């Protein structure tokens, strides 16, 4: 594949050749991802529809399957209204700031043993660093809009993300203690052998903490106080319309898929089949990865249809006083059990 590309682009200078090849790889990840995001919004409306005994969108195209495309077209045609006395530059750059980290994190995602764009050594840290940057889109949007509701949403989001970021980071410390590596590919390879080898069993508390923090980090129900339709209209994106709003929307769904994929990689064995036997190994690894990610992503939709929104002080209490102590205790348990007790083998 790469040789074929090189033969096609011999006329280019060498450094430019590298850049174009990287661009091609980026597009081949981002384009399917964007299609996934579009159909994830459709899945959400359908799933929540059936959970509330409705049918959901079924008018555009066969069984409603063209609905996301119609939505995208509609949002592209609409005018982007910029509020008076807002900061125009920051107002327009905020949606980009929230979408970019969600897409850039996919650079280190391993889809199978060999299929990864950049197999860097500290990929787990890289993903954590990038997901922590998504909050700037929300904060900048809230400030630049020159609106009280948007500003309230931004403040809430900032406080919430700082709280849950810590719990998330500690949950990942547990994973890297057990795997002994910061590389996502190595972490998955350590879980080989069957579903009883996956990390969700020895690290069950951390698995729960990570997933809950992930839901909070993506500002999804029941932690969606940054939007809080019934309290502060639409929170940080209340002043946004048209494509600028659509980019925020895309960022939220891209982040959900990202968190689901990370949960699968770190706790549910990534692309590995649940049992290393004939009928399960027939399915290719990338399919397993997709299946597991979809299953975890389904929980995001299920949560939204099930739970009422948390009160703000309850969110803070859960983050600081429940999730962080749980992770701290479990990290100590892993460390002590691994080096001082005979049951250390379950953590290695």
């Amino acid at each position, binding site marked *: 594949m790469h040789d074929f590309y090189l033969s096609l682009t011999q006329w280019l200078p060498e*450094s430019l050749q*590298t*850049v174009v090849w990287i661009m091609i790889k980026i597009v081949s990840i981002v384009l399917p991802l964007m299609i996934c995001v579009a159909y994830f919004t459709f899945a959400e409306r359908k799933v929540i529809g059936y959970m509330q005994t409705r049918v959901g969108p079924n008018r555009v195209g066969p069984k409603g399957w063209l609905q996301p495309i119609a939505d995208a077209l509609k949002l592209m045609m609409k005018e982007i209204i910029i509020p008076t006395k807002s900061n125009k530059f*920051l107002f327009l750059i905020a949606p980009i700031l929230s979408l970019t980290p969600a897409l850039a994190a996919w650079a280190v995602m391993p889809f199978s043993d060999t299929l990864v764009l950049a197999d*860097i*050594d*500290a990929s787990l*840290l*890289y993903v*954590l*660093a*990038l997901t*922590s*940057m998504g*909050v*700037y889109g929300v*904060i*900048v949007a809230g*400030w630049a809009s020159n609106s009280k509701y948007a*500003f309230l949403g*931004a*403040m809430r989001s*900032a*406080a919430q*993300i*700082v709280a849950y*970021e*810590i719990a998330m*980071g500690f949950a990942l410390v547990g994973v890297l203690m057990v795997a002994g590596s*910061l590389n996502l590919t190595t972490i998955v390879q350590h879980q080989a052998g069957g579903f009883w080898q996956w990390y969700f069993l020895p690290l069950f508390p951390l698995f729960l903490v990570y997933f809950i923090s992930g839901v909070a980090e993506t500002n999804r129900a029941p932690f969606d106080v940054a939007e809080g339709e019934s309290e502060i209209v639409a929170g940080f994106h209340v002043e946004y319309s048209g494509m600028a709003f659509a980019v925020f929307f895309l960022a939220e769904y891209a982040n959900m898929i990202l968190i689901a994929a990370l949960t699968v990689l770190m706790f549910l064995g990534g692309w590995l089949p649940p049992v290393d036997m004939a009928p399960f190994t027939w399915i290719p690894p990338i399919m397993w990865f997709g299946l597991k990610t979809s299953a975890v992503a389904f929980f995001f939709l299920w949560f939204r249809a099930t739970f009422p929104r948390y009160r703000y*002080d*309850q969110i803070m*209490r859960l983050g600081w006083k429940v999730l962080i102590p749980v992770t701290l205790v479990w990290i100590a348990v892993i460390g002590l059990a691994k080096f001082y007790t005979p049951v250390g083998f379950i953590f290695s």
Partner: protein
Amino acid sequence: MTFFEIAFYFFSAVLVIAATMVVTIRNPVKSALFLVLAFFSAACVWITLEAEFLAIVLVLVYVGAVMVLFLFVVMMLDIDLAEMRAGFTRYLPIGGIIAALLVAEIALVMHQSFLPADYLNPTPQGVEYSNTRELGEQIYTHYVYAFEIAAFILLVAIIAAIALTMRRRPNNKYINPGEQVKVKREDRLRIVKMPSDKPIDLSPVESPSSNEETS
């Protein structure tokens, strides 16, 4: 120029411009955002220098947590920068002396460790070289006591900060979540049974209140 060199000079230029904007721009929120940009481009420069662990941690800690809190505060304060700059010319001499001293100190240290003739340029490491593992081994073996002492000082600082700001607030409407969870339906809810409408009295009455029937 290789791709790495182009990236290095590009991010260095962004870093210098952003750092200049931090101190010259008038709006404090924009200044904080330029500081974020400066941190980010510094991280990118470090990556081109093969210090990927430090770069990622710089983004994770400073961009992802510290600056978020900083922005949180700066956005809510009404800072008048014109007032803060009022004494600029008055403090310029002493500030200038301190700046010159700092530059001289840094130059001395740099001169001592990087300029001698026997100092070799570091050779680029291979792809499989793990910066993170190397750093961890250094910290937890050679420098473990220094590291532990630094950690302990940080812990003391955290406790001191909490102790300084923790005071009794009698007006605080404190919520006890345990009590909230323990509440039973009987504690909060009283069901009052009453008929949905009164039965109509069909017997003839002489009271004057029912005279609307006669009209």
